[in-house]
């Protein structure tokens, strides 16, 4: 078992090593020791960052410079678009889309001869023949990383590195110097609200559970990140699992729980593996277990895997799932804080919420509440995706505008296309338009516009995205994920989807729009849990802001974005067609005929609209009409 003094000793020892992982402005030639940070998040791992690490280690050994270089596998840097990402300190050179075959050049050029490998350096950091600090680029400059403070900085599988970044110091402070009520008051005062979607004040939740006079209580971490397009919880678990363990222990102390559960998606193998490893390390150090830091406080954490049910993000459904049952929600009240897991008072917080706790304890509630807006304090992590240049993970202060996030940090829309909509809050949220770009991002503004913060997914859509199809996509999702317990959600989402299907097939009527609106409101008002209560949001928000697109489908029988298959057909422009016959050979339904070197023709009756001809044509001769 470690004591607080032991942690301080570990910190001093490891700090020296970590001090190299920052930009010091030293001339390349004068660098004695380099840290090569390789992103080991899911995105970069998918593009072989593990092989890059192996190749780096091999090359470094080949050149015999092991004592001058460390290769570190870190959590996510955020700029997933450019993955696999490698950063070399102390210069802070940012390499993008690195491949295994580049490694010998990189090691020899940069690490051995002090000449960064220009062709892989992130374009935005190059100016006037110089390579600049990546932290000054648009993507990083406006960010304020609190929840992601350690992602990309430490090796998440080494507990000492977490400790050297003030890890477990907040736990020490809480156990040694603060009463349970003081902890709750600090979190309350900070204004921290749940980052999982609901936005309920975290300190209040803790207070309710703390007030229950029961022997057994549970602290649960919701890592069942089901929103399509959101991956911040996964990135935190992959890049900084100890921050969640530490915060859960603090929360356990505050409410009087001795057992915690992390409910995490089985689809996140890397996150699960790193979390398990971190729990094991924390137990070895006595930071979980019977006598934490020698204070007599007892707390331990178990991991439970989800099994692919979106509704399990709802807290009562999640608890049913931990109990081994079908993950269906229960009516509230009783609230989990009163009667939760196995009937005992339980608090459920989201991963990102937990990641904010230790900094709040260490730096104080006033520091945290100085960031953000009046009612939404602190920062929020967003997963920026879809039709945007810099897809990735960004942490920004609340109150920033959508425009800043999409156009400054996100770099705008690729391929010169026009911005059409931004979807926030996943299947529970809504689509906002160009006129909302200057609105601030906070819980209340987004809700008032008919969308919501949700867990922080942000999908950018351009002119090629059909908004009716997007609404249909989300309804297909919620219909599929509806657990079936209550009728408004089970039947309502199905009927709503049928109407949307009709419209995308060109069979809709104007009456359908009114019916959809009425049905949506019924589902919202009458459903048992948040899944049903928010499921119609994508329909209502698109009906409100993109009604003309619905009208085009219904009245003109056209899909303006060329997405809905029933409303489009493919033709070949005889002017552009060179008669190469590629499309005819690839067509699965033999619908294209013609003579080589003469324009080909599509038989629209035989055409199944698979789009293969459009994809394969090298002369852009196939058009959607």
């Amino acid at each position, binding site marked *: 078992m470690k004591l607080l003094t032991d942690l301080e000793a570990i910190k001093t020892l490891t700090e020296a090593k970590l001090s190299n992982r920052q930009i010091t402005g030293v001339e390349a030639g004068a660098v004695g020791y380099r840290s090569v940070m390789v992103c080991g998040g*899911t*995105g970069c791992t*998918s*593009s072989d960052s593990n092989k890059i690490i192996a190749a780096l280690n091999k090359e470094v050994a080949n050149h015999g410079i092991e004592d001058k270089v460390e290769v570190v596998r870190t959590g996510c840097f955020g*700029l*997933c*678009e450019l*993955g696999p990402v490698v950063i070399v300190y102390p210069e802070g050179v940012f390499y993008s889309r690195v491949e295994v075959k580049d490694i010998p050049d990189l090691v020899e050029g940069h690490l051995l001869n002090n000449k960064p490998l220009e062709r892989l350096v992130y374009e935005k950091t190059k100016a006037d023949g110089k390579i600049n600090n990546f932290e000054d680029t648009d993507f990083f400059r406006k960010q304020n990383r609190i929840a992601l403070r350690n992602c990309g900085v430490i090796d998440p599988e080494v507990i000492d590195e977490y400790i050297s970044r003030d890890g477990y110091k907040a736990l020490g402070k809480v156990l040694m110097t603060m009463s349970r009520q003081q902890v709750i008051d600090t979190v309350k005062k900070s204004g921290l609200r749940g980052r999982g979607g609901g936005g309920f004040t975290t300190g209040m939740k803790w207070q309710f559970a703390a007030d229950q006079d029961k022997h057994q209580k549970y602290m649960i971490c919701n890592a069942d*990140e*089901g*929103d*399509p*397009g*959101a*991956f911040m919880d*996964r990135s935190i678990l992959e890049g900084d699992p100890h921050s969640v363990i530490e915060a859960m222990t603090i929360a356990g102390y505050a409410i009087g729980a001795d057992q915690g559960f992390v409910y995490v998606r*089985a*689809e*996140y193998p890397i996150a699960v593996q790193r979390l398990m490893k971190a729990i094991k390390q924390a137990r070895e150090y006595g930071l979980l277990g019977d006598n934490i830091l020698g204070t007599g406080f007892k707390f331990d954490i*178990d991991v*439970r*895997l*989800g*099994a*692919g*049910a*979106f509704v399990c993000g709802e807290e009562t459904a999640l608890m049913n*799932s*931990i*109990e*081994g*049952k*079908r*993950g269906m929600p229960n009516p509230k009240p009783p609230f989990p804080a009163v009667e939760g897991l*196995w009937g005992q008072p339980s608090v459920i917080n989201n991963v990102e919420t937990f990641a904010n706790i230790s900094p709040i304890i260490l730096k104080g509630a006033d520091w945290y509440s100085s960031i953000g807006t009046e009612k939404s304090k602190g920062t929020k992590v967003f*997963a920026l*995706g*879809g*039709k945007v240049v810099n*897809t*990735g993970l960004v942490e920004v202060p609340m109150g920033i505008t959508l425009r800043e996030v999409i156009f400054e940090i996100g770099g705008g829309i690729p391929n010169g296309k026009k911005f059409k909509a931004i*979807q926030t809050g*996943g299947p529970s949220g809504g689509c906002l338009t160009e006129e909302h770009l200057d609105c601030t991002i906070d819980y209340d503004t987004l809700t008032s516009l008919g969308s919501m913060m949700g867990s922080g*997914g942000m*999908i950018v*859509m351009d002119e090629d*995205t059909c908004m009716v199809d*997007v609404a249909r*996509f*989300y309804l297909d999702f919620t219909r599929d994920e509806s*657990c079936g317990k209550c009728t408004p959600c089970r039947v309502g989402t199905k009927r709503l989807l049928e109407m949307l299907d009709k419209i995308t097939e060109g069979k809709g009527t104007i009456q359908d729009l009114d019916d959809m609106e009425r049905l949506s409101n019924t589902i919202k008002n009458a459903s048992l849990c948040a899944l049903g209560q928010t499921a119609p949001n994508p329909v209502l928000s698109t009906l409100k802001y993109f009604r003309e697109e619905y009208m085009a489908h219904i009245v003109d029988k056209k899909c303006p974005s060329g997405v809905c298959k029933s409303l489009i057909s493919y033709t070949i422009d005889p002017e552009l067609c060179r008669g190469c016959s590629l499309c005819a050979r690839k067509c*699965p339904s033999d619908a294209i005929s013609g003579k080589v070197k003469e324009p080909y023709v599509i038989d629209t009756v035989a055409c199944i609209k*698979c*789009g*293969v001809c459009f*994809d*394969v044509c090298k002369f852009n001769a196939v058009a959607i009409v």
Partner: protein
Amino acid sequence: MVLLQSVCCCGETAEPDEKLEKVKAAIEQFKTIKGALIPVLHEVQDIYGYLPEEVLKVVSTELNIPMSEIYGVASFYHFFSLTPKGENVIRVCMGTACYIKGAQGLLDRLSTELKVAVQGTTEDNKFTLEATRCLGACGLAPVLTIGEKVYGRLTPNDIPKILKEYN
């Protein structure tokens, strides 16, 4: 040959079943914790690739949970499959980021190339085609996975080349 067979307590001979032994070990490991069913089902699916009925019967007896309840839980969660899958499982991510960037096109093309419906298995049992929930690799959208391997930033034209790797 007879020597290689193990003798069951009822006197009949049975092939030693390594997989079933693993399942029993897992049940033993989880038996004492509350809410053991889902962790056990995860183990069974890991071992067999799906949830075979005979094995679920063993789980039912060992955990003292009725088959009806096990079926209720197993059929509730997308992650569990009650039918066997093909040699290679192709999962096309249908998260929003991938969908916006043309995942449906990948799925359609795979369906045409493999002549199999979505969620179906090819006749030669070589491929199972699935549409799956967000894999969280949104920076690489659109994404598909075959087994553990991830393919990102795809267009439908990449499909034939990818499938060739498995022929």
